[in-house]
């Protein structure tokens, strides 16, 4: 059980725990952001090949000495998507706070049934 795998799964689950247990909306968004970081870490650690170096093919590094570049390309996109989602979520929360004057999830329940 590799430490990075363990860390990524732990981060994902702590993020999920925050969303499930915490009542403050901003805390939930912190949990969401942590979950996304955990997923990125998982993606990278899946693409890592032990004993190889970064995929910059400068003079010293030959193709069979480099790590898998694809997960790194994917994570580049995933991180920025994570930030975009967080920025959007926060602006929604700002609007929400302006109208509802509360951040407690139990009170944000006007739309139900």
């Amino acid at each position, binding site marked *: 059980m590799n430490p990075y795998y363990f860390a990524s799964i732990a981060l994902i689950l702590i993020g999920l725990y925050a969303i499930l247990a915490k009542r403050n909306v901003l805390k939930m968004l912190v949990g969401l952001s942590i979950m996304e970081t955990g997923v990125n870490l998982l993606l990278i650690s899946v693409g890592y090949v032990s004993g190889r170096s970064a995929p910059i093919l400068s003079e010293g590094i030959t193709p069979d000495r480099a790590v898998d570049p694809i997960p790194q390309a994917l994570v580049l996109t995933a991180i*920025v998507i994570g930030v975009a989602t967080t920025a959007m979520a926060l602006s929604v929360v700002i609007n929400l706070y302006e109208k509802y004057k509360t951040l407690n999830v139990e009170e944000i329940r006007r739309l139900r049934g």
Partner: protein
Amino acid sequence: MVKRIFAIVFILIIGFWMAKALDQVPFGQDRMLVGKYYLEHVKEETGAVNAVTAVVVNYRGFDTLGEVTVLFIASTGVAALLWRKKRKRTAKTEGSVVLTTGARLLLPFIMLFGVYIFIHGHLTPGGGFPGGATIATAFLFLYLAFTVYEVDHKIFEPLEGLAGVGYVTVGLIGLAIGGYFLFDWIWQTWGIGKENIGRLLSAGFIPIIYTLIGIKVGTELTGIVDNMIKEPEEGGQ
């Protein structure tokens, strides 16, 4: 309290299930299939030294186009949601003297460093995204330092649009010349810079695209920061 215990039990079971699944994907084992092709062919097919940049811009350029759109949606969305008739900056305290002088001194260097990152995207690690982010932090620096400073939307939004339009036009030119959307026509058809791999003017249209992405990401993140920091005046809707 019961809710927390249930939550912990739930996430433990889910964690155990994911761990069991991950055990079958051993860490550090060479499972590359398409990755191996990229590493072997990156030099002659794209001319970039940094394989990740080549994959990001050239091989999987579509993802990055999507990626830039996501950031564009985020900045437009934030602007749409936080739009008010009259908005002004409500920062009360001016930055300390260290901050203000630091801002004046360091600003050009941070900008320069950001531009350096995305211009050398195809050689050294980092590319359009960190470069753009560094430029955005430069503007953030100004926002924190001065209570009056505001980015002029009249210039930033069209610049953002222009960079986006630029990126899509590069793709369309590729479609026109090479027959495929986002086709690297500089490298594949014209073959400029084939001889000086590893130096600045090489790797086809990767530097052009990364410059456009750098400008776009920079302006967009500054736009988000600007929208977030301003508060509606009391009269504002």
